[in-house]
């Protein structure tokens, strides 16, 4: 059975619903409310649960939990009194729920379908993503080349010097390539 989200209207509705949901979640501070929202989100997005949770755990939890723990410990040391834990837990929970909902929605929504009524936006997205893909490959190759040329680990100065050269090359390649893609898309009615 085809996914319901391949329909442009369904994808658009999902994206709009996601926007409303993340803004609403970003207003919550109460732990009970956040726990209830987390339970609802886990239930609604149970398909692909592990994948979305893993992505959220990798990309957001280390930063927000680390920042919360360090700040809490620092404030305890400076003030001499133990700060209330609840706001720190709420901060970590809020960021994690938003990340989970975002990853779960991005797994389901077809953003190109959602943007279909706006051909200029679609063209810009395609151009940008195509260039990002090509340039990331070039940047990774260049960094590996830099590592292979040096006997030691690259230092900040090496990385910055190399980045300057790569950026100039990327700029030239990217502008030429983007123009070609844009003309190809225009000739296909975008």
């Amino acid at each position, binding site marked *: 059975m085809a996914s319901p989200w391949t329909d442009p209207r369904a994808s658009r509705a999902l994206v709009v619903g996601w926007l409303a949901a993340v803004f609403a979640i970003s207003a919550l501070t109460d732990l009970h409310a956040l726990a209830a929202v987390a339970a609802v989100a886990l239930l609604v997005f149970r398909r692909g649960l592990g994948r979305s949770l893993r992505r959220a755990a990798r990309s957001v939890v280390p930063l927000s939990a680390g920042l919360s723990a360090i700040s809490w410990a620092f404030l305890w040391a400076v003030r001499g009194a133990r700060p209330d834990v609840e706001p720190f837990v709420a901060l970590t929970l809020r960021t994690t729920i938003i990340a989970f909902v975002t990853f779960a929605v*991005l797994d389901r929504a077809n953003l190109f379908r959602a943007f279909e009524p706006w051909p200029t936006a679609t063209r810009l997205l395609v151009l*940008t993503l195509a260039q990002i893909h090509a340039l990331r490959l070039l940047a990774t190759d260049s960094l590996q080349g830099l590592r292979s040329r040096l006997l030691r680990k690259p230092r900040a100065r090496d990385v910055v010097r190399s980045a300057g050269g790569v950026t100039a090359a990327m700029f030239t390649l990217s502008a030429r390539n983007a123009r070609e893609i844009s003309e190809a898309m225009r000739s296909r009615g975008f």
Partner: protein
Amino acid sequence: MHVPDGFLSPQITVPAYAVSAPLWAWAARRHFGRASAESLPVIGSLTALAFVVQTIMIPVPGGTSTHLVGMTLLALLYHPLVAFVCESLVLLVQALFFGAGGITVLGVNALAMGLLGPLAGWLVWKALRRLNEKVAVFAAAYVSMQVATLAVAGALGLQHALSARYFPVPLAVVLPATMIPSLTAAGLAEGAFTLFTLSLLRKANLRGVSLD
């Protein structure tokens, strides 16, 4: 450096969108308006370039790393508003396709890293370029990084002032935590990167790439 979703409440994120939205419209009309068929590839490639530049990590003593922003380069080559549009697109792509940063804080991040930083850098470059161009470019990139970081720290500090229950970390902690790496490593790296890239772009003698 940018603020992730959930760190700022709608009290800040909604007004930031309200400020950003007309600026996006104005910037798009002014710099990418009528000839959008011609300018779209340029916006796309500049956005992609900025995105990739932001993935280049700079090792910082202590085992961590920071990243370049690359927006001063665009502000100096084109205009601060071009940098604003491109950085906003970078942040949008990061939020939509890579789950980084966030959609609720897009306005705040775009204003800090895409507008205030590059605008400050551009003004510094304008003021110093007659004295020494290389110094002017380096100082512009360095100042741009500091202003952008300060703006991010300010937004977090404001959130704490509005509601300590929402964001429990005071400005006294946020400010040194963000500014020390920015002043000692990220700003210097951004300055060196902007200087190297501009000199290489000049040597390449590309059409439409000029500081004049």
